[in-house]
């Protein structure tokens, strides 16, 4: 198992390095950080543009820029932003903490929902509940994340109007200014999380519950489950001990591999609820042609995705011994 883990970890490193180069090259090729300066009316003076060119290392070739960016990251320096006072590293760290709580909680809720509903629909196959849940699953699969989020936000606003106070927060990740005291602050943060988390969780849960249902049905029709029933175990015991355990193994992989699309969903969700998180940072950076900021954002996202893929492989190895020796 250890050898398998070490091999997988070693394999991830070159992937990450190549990914970082592609990200940087794509970012540099697709945007000109000086374009906003040049298009300014009246145009910025030449000496300002020259100074910016040097400050953003644009006078150097692509490879030199890439290596100085990559080298800087190890010392916590993510390169110069087009906003001269901004520090990309510390900005991203703040934003990351905001977004991670949204993604983590939404994934947790989505997983619990997916397992519960997936198992129930498999057990009660072709029941009214199954048909309703299946239809709802299809509906959420077909629903654009932003549309659903806007609807939820509007529902929150109308609820607030109905009760006459700010019962549900609909804008931002924390009140401005933030409340005094740790307890009040935490409560405020949780209050702001309710709607975005529901929105992101429901969008992700649909595919997973369909997957749990299919995998549960497959397991329940397998020979060893029939054997367990035949030797006299109760239906419930077979379901939980033999069925569910096996059925959940592929789900770990599916959830881990879906992380990239969840990050994408979080970008849209944050945009609707006006969170100052990673999503907002990405959108702002792209609009300002802030190449280093965009590339650093993508590098962090790619690192998270690769880490989750690694985690999926290792978990799969732990859960299913056959994989280790393959």
């Amino acid at each position, binding site marked *: 198992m250890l050898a398998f883990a070490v091999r997988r970890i070693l394999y991830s490193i070159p*992937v990450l390095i*190549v*990914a970082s180069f*592609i*990200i940087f090259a*794509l*970012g540099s090729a*697709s*945007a*000109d950080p000086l374009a906003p300066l040049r298009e300014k009316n009246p145009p910025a003076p030449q000496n300002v543009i020259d100074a910016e060119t040097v400050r953003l290392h644009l006078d150097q070739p692509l490879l030199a820029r890439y290596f100085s960016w990559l080298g800087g990251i190890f010392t916590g320096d993510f390169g110069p932003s087009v906003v001269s006072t901004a520090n990309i590293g510390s900005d991203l760290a703040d934003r990351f903490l905001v977004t991670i709580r949204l993604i983590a909680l939404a994934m947790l809720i989505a997983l619990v929902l997916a397992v519960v509903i997936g198992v129930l629909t498999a057990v009660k196959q072709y029941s009214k509940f199954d048909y309703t849940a299946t239809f709802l699953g*299809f*509906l959420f*699969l*077909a*629903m*654009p*994340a*932003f*549309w659903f989020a*806007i609807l939820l936000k*509007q529902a929150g*606003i109308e609820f607030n109007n109905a009760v006459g106070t700010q019962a549900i927060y609909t804008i931002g990740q924390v009140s401005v200014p933030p409340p005094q005291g740790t307890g009040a602050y935490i409560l405020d943060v949780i209050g702001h999380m309710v709607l975005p988390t529901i929105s992101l969780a429901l969008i992700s849960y649909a595919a997973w519950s369909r997957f749990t249902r*299919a995998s549960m*049905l*497959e397991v329940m*029709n397998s020979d060893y489950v029939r054997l367990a029933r035949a030797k006299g175990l109760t239906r419930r015991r077979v379901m939980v001990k033999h069925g569910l355990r096996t059925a959940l193994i592929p789900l770990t992989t599916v959830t881990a591999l879906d992380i*990239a*699309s969840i*990050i*994408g969903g979080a*970008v*849209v969700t944050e*945009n*609707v609820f006006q969170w100052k998180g990673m999503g907002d940072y*990405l*959108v702002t950076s*792209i*609009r300002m*042609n802030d190449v280093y900021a*965009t590339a650093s*954002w*993508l590098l962090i*996202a*790619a690192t998270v*995705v*690769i880490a989750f*893929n690694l985690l999926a492989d290792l978990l799969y190895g732990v859960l299913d011994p056959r994989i280790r020796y393959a």
Partner: protein
Amino acid sequence: MPDTTTAIPPQAEEREFTVAERSQAQLVFRRFLQHRAAVVSLCVFVALILLAYVGGWLWKYDAGQYTPDNSVPPSWEHPFGTDSAGRDQFAQVLRGTRISLQVSVSVAILATLVGTLWGSVAGYFGGWVDTVMMRISDLVLTLPLIAVAAMLAHNFGGTWYLIALVIAALYWAYVSRVARGVVLSLREKEFVEAARALGASDTRIILRHLVPNALGSILVNLTILVALAILLETSLSYLGFGVTPPDTSLGLLVSEAQTALTTRPWLFYFPGLFIIIIALTINFIGDGLRDAFDPQQTKVRQ
């Protein structure tokens, strides 16, 4: 499914038993017809396409045309109401549907062509070719699609075909994985071995056995890709990195309407509803196609 001949009950009058050969396509078509949700979805989807292309052309208002009625709710005159500038929302939604459909169908076709070629070459040759090609696909898959698409589309995008190109340039990697898996499993199948033992050439094996058998999975995947692409395109347009005015798409319409949700909710609901109808019907059609192409899978599931 190499065996495509089946006896059918007697239909002709002059003989007691008539055995007619049914082609693979006929079998698939018959099985598809048994999936009720898929058939209904196909009808709705075709109706929607007709509405978007023919209906939009026949409708009394053009998209973007200013009418004297500002901000009127849905009525017979304006079925989907009008916006604050007096533009007929029905015409706008139909034009948005056309553009969104064009983007997603182009993405599905382009990504399927490139991805299938990439994946099947990798799967067919195996060895280091496979390793290198699939590592490249894996690299594309490590990037959150919407983020890269937004970055590329911000400076290259704007018109619908450029957006389609950007999305397809990222989606092919998903297709290549599916195609490779299909080719890998087909290569080892007994009927391919049997054909080879009978002396069939590589070309014959590929054209007569691999391609027809892989077609099902590829077609199912293509269908689902249309739904995924329409969701991504609308999300991009919503964030402001997709189709830009004066062009329009369903996502852009929702984006423009979100501030007016309390005062003019019809502007928000109709484009969103159209996105859902398109994605929902396509997913059901894909589900029906999957069952039709792979009856064994259905049996396991039931």
